[in-house]
């Protein structure tokens, strides 16, 4: 049997395929949380990205690659617009960030705006006109083992790797990144240093929205490709858990995302190999695993090592400094 059809290689390749949207969403949420803003609206923003991107792919003219990239970008911008609501409430009006993020998911999510837009424009049941398909990078897609895993993925997978590298460089090697970390750790100190706390919080909440939208676009343009109400089915929440799992470090989100990608794909891969278990058992794996992983990383030992940004979730009011 060809080594590239072995279960380990297939699983590794699909772990990356299914884990990629989590990388986008988690890095986005990580940037927002580093500025001190907890945004629980990731699921809703992803669904907005998914429905907007799918509408664009069905309706915009142009060469396939161009429309796909444009659709992804527009999906991201649509999610960014919803993130602005959270930013205004959380940063501008100092509202309760937890309730505001939940409101964002209710507003935008599976029974909200994304559902309204998708149903009103009758996107459900339409076959996708274009989709992100796997590339043959450097002609190496048939190379043993590494071929299908590393060189036979779609463009967004490679984009997510670039994103992780950029996010790492930004956080740890630039002055703006240093200021960002200061804002999340101690907005008072950052304010004294002359950093505009509100501006950093707005900018990174919006960046988080953009990336969540791209993650949503990945669902409707690469994973299924079509549109179903609530198609991300909780991936947004897993992405939020991943940020904790990755201790707020972009490079660590990759490992976590691929672990969850592995769990999501386990069901399909094993079923194709005649392993019979109720589909719900596999379906529940990513969610139960998230709980288990959170328990492990939330113990005192782990918290002490690499904690959350100290100001996470607390509004900053200059007058009350």
């Amino acid at each position, binding site marked *: 049997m060809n080594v590239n059809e072995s279960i380990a290689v297939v699983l590794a390749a699909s772990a990356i395929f299914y884990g990629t949207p989590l990388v986008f969403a988690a890095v986005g949420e990580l940037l927002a949380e580093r500025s001190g803003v907890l945004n629980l609206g990731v699921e809703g923003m992803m669904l907005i990205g998914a429905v907007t991107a799918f509408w664009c792919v069905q309706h915009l003219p142009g060469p396939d690659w161009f429309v796909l990239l444009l659709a992804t970008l527009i999906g991201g911008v649509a999610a960014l617009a919803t993130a602005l609501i959270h930013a205004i409430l959380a940063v501008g009006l100092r509202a309760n960030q937890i309730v*505001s993020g939940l409101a*964002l998911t209710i507003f935008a999510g599976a029974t*909200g*705006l994304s559902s309204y837009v998708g149903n009103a424009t009758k996107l459900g049941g339409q076959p996708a006109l274009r989709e992100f398909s796997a590339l043959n990078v450097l002609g190496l897609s048939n190379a043993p083992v590494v071929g299908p895993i590393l060189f036979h993925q779609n463009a967004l997978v490679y984009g997510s790797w670039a994103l992780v590298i950029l996010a790492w460089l930004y956080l740890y090697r630039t002055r703006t990144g240093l200021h960002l970390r200061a804002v999340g750790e101690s907005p008072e100190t950052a304010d004294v240093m002359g950093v505009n706390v509100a501006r950093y919080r707005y900018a990174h909440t919006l960046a988080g929205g953009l990336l969540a939208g791209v993650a949503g676009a990945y669902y409707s343009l690469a994973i299924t490709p079509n549109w179903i*109400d609530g198609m991300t089915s909780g991936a947004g*929440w897993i992405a939020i858990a991943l940020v904790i799992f990755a201790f707020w470090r972009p490079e660590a989100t990759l490992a976590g995302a691929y672990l969850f990608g592995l769990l999501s794909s386990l069901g399909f891969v094993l079923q194709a190999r005649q392993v019979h278990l109720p589909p*719900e058992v596999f379906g529940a794996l990513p969610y139960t695993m998230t709980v288990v992983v959170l328990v492990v990383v939330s113990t005192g030992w782990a918290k002490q090592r690499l904690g959350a940004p100290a100001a996470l979730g607390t509004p900053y009011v200059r*007058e009350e400094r």
Partner: protein
Amino acid sequence: MRIERRLTAPRWLVVAVPVASLVAAFAAAAVVLLVAGKDPVATYARLFDRGFIAPGALTNTLVTATPLLLTGLAAAAAFRMKLWNIGAEGQLYLGAVGASGAGLALHGRPGLVIIAGMIAGGLVAGAAWAVVPGLLRAYFNTNEIITTLMLNYVAGLLLTYLIFDSRSYWRDLTTFSARAFPQGKMLPDAAMWPNFNLVLGPIVTLNVPFGFLLGILAATVLWLLYRSTSFGFDARVQGDSPPAARYAGVRTRRVVVAMMGLSGALAGLGGASEIGDFRHVLDPRGLQQAGFGYAGIVVAALARYNPFAVGVVAFLLGGLANAGYSLQGPDFPAGLVGVLQGMILFFALGGELLLRYRVSFSARRAEPPRAVAAAPVAE
């Protein structure tokens, strides 16, 4: 613009802000409707008619408001002590499983026994599902927002498994068509919860479902619990300041677990009422489409966690949800109700600013230089 913290909010403002939030949310959602090419006035008129005016509308609204009232109380109970139980959705599913299981098991007993069994089944199953994240939060400091949410999805899959992919106790396997198109076993007639006729005039009679009365009872119990028991006091102290609670000798872990259990029991009772008042069968699709658990968060936040205000808000949003179901169709796409709920919550949150801060727009008043103003305080 200057913002100063208020020490106390005037009483009229506490009522005016939620009302203004509702009005503003409907105004903002009108923009969404205009963009979608719909007439907002006509849409709202239809919603209002189907929710509150049309024959039988009020009765249906109360049926829809019942689970909302209970999930709203579940959220209010936990949120008030900053315990973010977002799992009312899953706890409601489990409550439905427990109540319908008890209803089926008690087949042939007197109606009173069956109904009591269903209530107990809902309470226990909902509480059990919520105690798990409660224990994790208390002993491992695990973020309960995420664990309760993840368990919602697991509970949804469990429901699906019980009816669609197993030969479970809840599934009807008696006829050929039921085997081909999976569905739950219908509860016996004696398991149907009573409703009470309220004659409001010569034409209008209102059927008040038993679950709604249970919900009002639950709101009263919760109010008394917070107001006049030591457990309620401990919970309030811990919500306001965990360090103060520890210093005062509150057994914080026990309070967290108990409060999660209580919150889950309320949501589970919501699931039981949905079975007893309305569905009479374990129906995974219908329960998951309703989204009562998430809407309960909107109810609790808009009611500012006050148990009796939860009743009023649940009635209003129940009317909205009920109208949404009955209108849903090709010319009335699903999702509009969620958009409205989300907007109401956004505006309620924005309005909180007015309660906590005094905002003044006087541009002329010169701000004192910071350094000078701060100097005496610093020394």
